[in-house]
C-alpha cells in the first residue's frame, strides 16, 4: 500500500488525509479575547507521523482539539479526505495533556472505556487492553483507581486507553511528559513499532526535540502566540530508528536546527 | 346493595361522624341495602366540593360551604339536619368575670382561623349583645391544645369554637360557660347534603342512609357507653390514650356530651332531621351579610329539601331503644 512506502520515503506528497487551512482560534475570556492561533495551514498524509513543537502556550493543544473536532475554529477549516462515505470523522485515539481518567473506574476499566463506548468486540479488545497495560508498565495495577496512581502512571493509563481501539488517527498531547528517562525510551520505541505495524496517522505534540526527530516524518515548528507555523521540517532518516541513532550526526543536525528555531541552546 | 360514599368534613375520624360509625358497626346501613364508605377530608369546604362534583354521594359537614358555594355553581341540597344546636358559640372559662355576652366588650376571642364560620356566628352574638367587634377582637389560635394554651396563657379570654372542640377541652379539665346565638342557637348546622343529581337518582338510598343514621343517633343517645365501645371498635386509634379507668371515665363523659348533641327529634311527636326553613334562611342571610353580598343570599329551596324527611323517619324507634338497652359487647 501507499502508506507503507511512506514510511521508507518520508514526506510523500500524496493527496492529503487532513488538510488544515487558514485556521484561526480566538478564545473569548472575561477580560478580552486571547488569539491563540493566528493562521495555521498544513496538511497530513495518511499514515504520516507528524510532531508539533512550539513554545508553551502557543496553541498546540488548541490545534489538536480542533483537529479532534472538540473545539470549533474561529475561522479557517479542517478537511478530512478519503474517509469512507457516511463516517463523520476518522476513528480517533487521543491522549490529552492531562491524563483525564474517570476516577470511579479502575485502570483496566479506564483502558477499556473506548471498547465499551464504541461497542467493540469484548474478548478480543480486552486482551489487547491487558497487553497495552503491560506494555505501559502497569501490570499489577489493573484494579487500582486513578487516585491511587502516581502522575506518570496516570499518564501511561491514558496512553493505553488511546491505543486500545486501534484507531487510524492518533492525537497525542505531550504523552510522555511525566515519564522518567527509561520509561520514556521504552514508550517511544513502542509507539514507533505500533505505528509502523498498524499504519496509523499520528499527530504528536512534544517538548522534547530529540523525541520529535526520532519519531516523525515531519516536524511542525510553531512560533510563539499568536502562533503561526514557523517551519515544517522533513526528517529524512531511515526507519526503523533506534535510540542509538540519536547520537548520529544527521540526527544532531535536525535537532540543532529545530532547537535554533525555538532559540533553545540545549536539551534539558 | 347500593354503594354510597359519605364524605366527612374532618381530616380524621372524629365524634362528629359518630352516627356513621355506630350505624356501620351495628349493621344499620347494611340492613338498608347500603354499602357505606366513609371518607375523611381536610374540611367542610372540600367535603362539599367533592360531593357537589359527584366524587362522593353525601357530604356530612357543616352547611356554610353549601350556602356560600351556590355562587360558584354548587348544585346540592341539605336533606337532613344532624345536629341539635348551632355548633358554634362563644365560651369563657368557668368562673370568669365575663358572665354575659355584653361583658365581651374589649375582650380578645380565640378562633381556629379567620376563615371559620364560628367567627361569623361569634360576631353576630356580639352584635346582638350590643358589642361591636374591632379588628383585633378575633385572634386565630388554632385548635386543640394550641387553642387551650392561648386561653390559659391569657392570650385570649374567650374562645369561639365548636362543640366537639369544647368537649375535648372539657375532658382535659377546662370548664366553660357558653354563650349561644340568641336566635340561631337551636339551628343544627351540621347536615347531610347531596347533589341535586344524587337526590334525583338515589332517593331510595338516601332515605335508607337517613334512617340508618337516625337509628344510630337514637342508639347513641340511649346508650352512650355502647356507642363509645362501637366507636373504639371502628377506630382503635381513638382508644389508645384511654387505657386506664380514669381516662375511660372521661371518655364516657365526653361521649355523653356528644351523643346528646345528636339526640335531635326523638322526643314524642318529633321528627328526626327536620329542616327548619326559616332558621336556614336566617343563617344564610347572616353568612352572606357577613361576606358583604347580602343580595346574593340563595333561596332556601335551592339549598335544602324536606322531601326525604318523611321516609327517613319510617322506622321503629322502640325497637332501636330496646336494642340499645340490651346491647352487649
Amino acid at each position: 500500500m501507499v502508506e507503507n512506502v511512506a514510511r521508507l520515503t518520508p514526506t510523500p506528497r500524496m493527496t492529503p488525509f487532513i488538510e488544515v487551512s487558514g485556521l484561526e482560534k480566538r478564545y473569548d475570556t472575561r477580560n478580552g479575547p486571547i488569539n491563540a492561533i493566528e493562521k495555521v495551514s498544513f496538511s497530513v498524509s495518511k499514515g504520516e507521523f507528524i510532531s508539533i513543537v512550539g513554545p508553551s502556550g502557543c496553541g498546540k493543544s488548541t490545534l489538536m482539539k480542533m483537529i479532534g473536532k472538540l473545539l470549533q475554529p474561529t475561522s479557517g477549516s479542517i478537511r478530512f479526505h478519503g474517509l469512507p462515505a457516511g463516517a463523520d470523522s476518522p476513528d480517533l485515539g487521543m491522549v490529552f495533556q492531562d491524563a483525564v481518567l474517570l476516577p470511579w473506574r479502575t485502570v483496566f476499566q479506564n483502558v477499556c472505556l473506548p471498547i465499551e463506548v464504541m461497542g467493540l468486540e469484548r474478548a478480543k479488545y480486552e486482551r489487547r487492553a491487558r497487553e497495552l497495560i503491560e506494555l505501559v508498565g502497569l501490570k499489577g495495577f489493573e484494579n487500582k483507581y486513578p487516585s491511587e496512581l502516581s502522575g506518570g502512571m496516570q499518564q501511561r493509563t491514558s496512553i493505553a486507553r488511546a491505543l486500545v481501539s486501534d484507531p487510524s488517527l492518533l492525537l497525542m498531547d505531550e504523552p510522555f511528559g511525566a515519564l522518567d528517562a527509561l520509561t520514556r525510551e521504552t514508550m517511544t520505541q513502542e509507539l514507533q513499532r505500533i505505528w509502523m505495524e498498524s499504519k496509523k496517522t499520528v499527530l504528536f505534540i512534544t517538548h522534547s526535540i530529540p523525541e520529535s526527530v526520532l519519531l516523525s516524518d515531519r516536524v511542525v515548528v510553531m512560533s510563539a502566540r499568536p502562533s503561526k507555523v514557523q517551519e515544517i521540517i522533513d526528517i529524512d532518516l531511515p526507519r526503523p530508528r533506534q535510540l542509538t541513532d540519536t547520537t548520529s550526526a544527521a540526527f544532531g543536525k535536525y535537532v540543532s536546527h529545530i532547537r535554533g528555531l525555538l532559540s533553545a541552546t540545549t536539551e534539558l | 346493595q347500593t354503594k354510597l360514599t359519605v364524605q366527612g368534613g374532618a381530616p380524621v375520624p372524629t365524634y362528629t361522624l359518630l352516627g356513621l360509625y355506630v350505624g356501620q358497626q351495628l349493621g344499620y346501613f347494611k340492613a338498608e341495602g347500603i354499602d357505606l364508605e366513609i371518607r375523611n377530608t381536610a374540611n367542610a369546604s372540600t367535603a362539599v366540593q367533592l360531593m357537589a362534583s359527584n366524587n362522593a354521594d353525601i357530604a356530612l359537614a357543616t352547611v356554610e360551604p353549601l350556602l356560600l358555594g351556590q355562587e360558584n355553581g354548587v348544585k346540592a341540597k341539605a336533606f337532613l339536619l344532624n345536629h341539635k344546636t348551632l355548633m358554634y358559640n362563644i365560651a369563657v372559662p368557668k368562673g370568669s368575670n365575663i358572665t354575659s355576652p355584653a361583658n365581651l366588650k374589649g375582650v380578645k376571642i380565640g378562633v381556629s382561623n379567620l376563615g371559620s364560620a364560628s367567627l361569623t356566628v361569634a360576631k353576630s352574638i356580639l352584635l346582638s349583645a350590643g358589642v361591636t367587634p374591632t379588628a383585633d377582637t378575633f385572634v386565630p389560635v388554632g385548635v386543640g391544645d394550641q387553642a387551650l394554651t392561648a386561653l390559659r396563657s391569657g392570650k385570649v379570654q374567650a374562645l369561639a369554637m365548636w362543640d366537639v372542640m369544647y368537649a375535648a377541652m372539657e375532658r382535659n379539665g377546662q370548664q366553660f360557660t357558653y354563650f349561644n346565638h340568641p336566635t340561631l342557637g337551636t339551628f343544627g348546622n351540621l347536615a347531610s347534603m347531596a347533589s341535586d343529581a344524587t337526590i334525583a337518582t338515589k332517593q331510595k338510598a338516601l332515605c335508607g342512609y337517613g334512617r340508618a343514621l337516625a337509628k344510630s343517633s337514637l342508639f347513641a343517645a340511649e346508650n352512650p357507653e355502647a356507642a363509645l365501645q362501637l366507636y373504639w371498635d371502628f377506630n382503635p386509634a381513638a382508644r389508645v390514650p384511654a387505657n386506664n379507668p380514669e381516662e375511660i371515665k372521661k371518655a364516657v363523659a365526653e361521649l355523653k356530651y356528644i351523643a346528646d348533641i345528636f339526640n335531635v327529634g326523638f322526643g314524642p311527636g318529633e321528627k328526626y332531621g327536620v329542616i327548619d326553613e326559616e332558621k336556614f334562611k336566617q343563617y344564610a342571610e347572616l353568612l352572606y351579610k357577613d361576606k358583604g353580598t347580602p343580595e346574593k343570599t340563595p333561596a332556601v329551596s335551592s339549598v335544602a329539601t324536606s322531601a326525604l324527611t318523611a321516609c327517613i323517619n319510617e322506622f321503629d324507634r322502640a325497637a332501636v331503644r330496646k336494642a340499645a338497652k340490651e346491647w352487649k359487647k
Partner: protein
Amino acid sequence: MSQVISATITPVRRLPRFDTGSVLSVVVAVVLLGGWEYCVRAGVIPGYLLPSPSKVVMQLYADLMHESVRVDIYYTLAEILLGFALATVLGLLFGAAIALIPIADKILSPYITCLQTIPKPAIAPLLIIWFGFGISSKVVIVALIAFYPIVVNAVVGFRGSDPRQILLMRVMKASRWQIFRMVQLPNALPYLMAGLQIAMVFSVIGAIVGEFLGASRGLGALIIQRQAAMDVAGVFSVLVVLSTVGIVLSVIIKALSKKLVFWGPAEEIRGV
C-alpha cells in the same frame, strides 16, 4: 467523501427576538391556560373545583388593587425572607460544623433529622408559646423547614473539596479557618447555591404552613379564609401570587449562583 469543520466570525450576534426557548415557553403556557379555560367553560371541571384562568386573573387584579391583600403579600414575604435568612445563617454554621468536626456530625446529625421530620402542626403549641403568635413564630417555622436542604448540601459541599487544594493550603500553614474560607467555601458554592434554591422554595411553603397554624395576616390566612368561603377563584389568585413570589425568588438565587460560581465548568463545554 470529504468533510469540513470550519467557521467564520459572525460579528452580528443573533438577536434574542426569535429565541426559540422563550417562544416555546409562551406557546406552552398559552396552550395550558387555553386548555384549562376550555375545560372549565365546557364544564369538564366544575367551577367550584377549579376556577377558569380568566376568573383567576380578574380576581388577581382585584386583589392586587386591594390594600389589604397587598399587606398580606408583604407580610408573607417578610416571613419568607426573614426565615430564609435565618435558615441560611444557621444552615451554613451547622453545615460547616458537621462537615469539618467529626464529633459534631455524630452529635448533631440525629437531632437535625429529628427536628426536620417533626410535622410543625404537631408542635404548634410549643412554637407559639416560645415564639408568640406574631410573625416570629412563622419565621421560626420557615427557618425550621428551609434549614435542612441548606445543611445537607453544605455538608456535602464543604466535604467535597479537591484534597490537593487542601494540601496546598497546608503547605502554607494555613489555619483551619483560612482553609475553610479560601478553599472549602468557594468549592462548596455550587452545592450551597443549590441548597439555597431548594430552601427558598420551601420557605414559601413554610410561611404558608406557619400561617395555617394561626395567623390573622398573610397569604396563608387568606387562603384558609377563602377556602372556607368556597371562594376558589380567590384561593387560586393567592396561589398565583405565591407561585410568582417563589419563581421570582428562585430566579434571583439562580442568577446569583451564576454570578458567584463564575468559574464553573459548564461554560467551557458550551463553547465547544
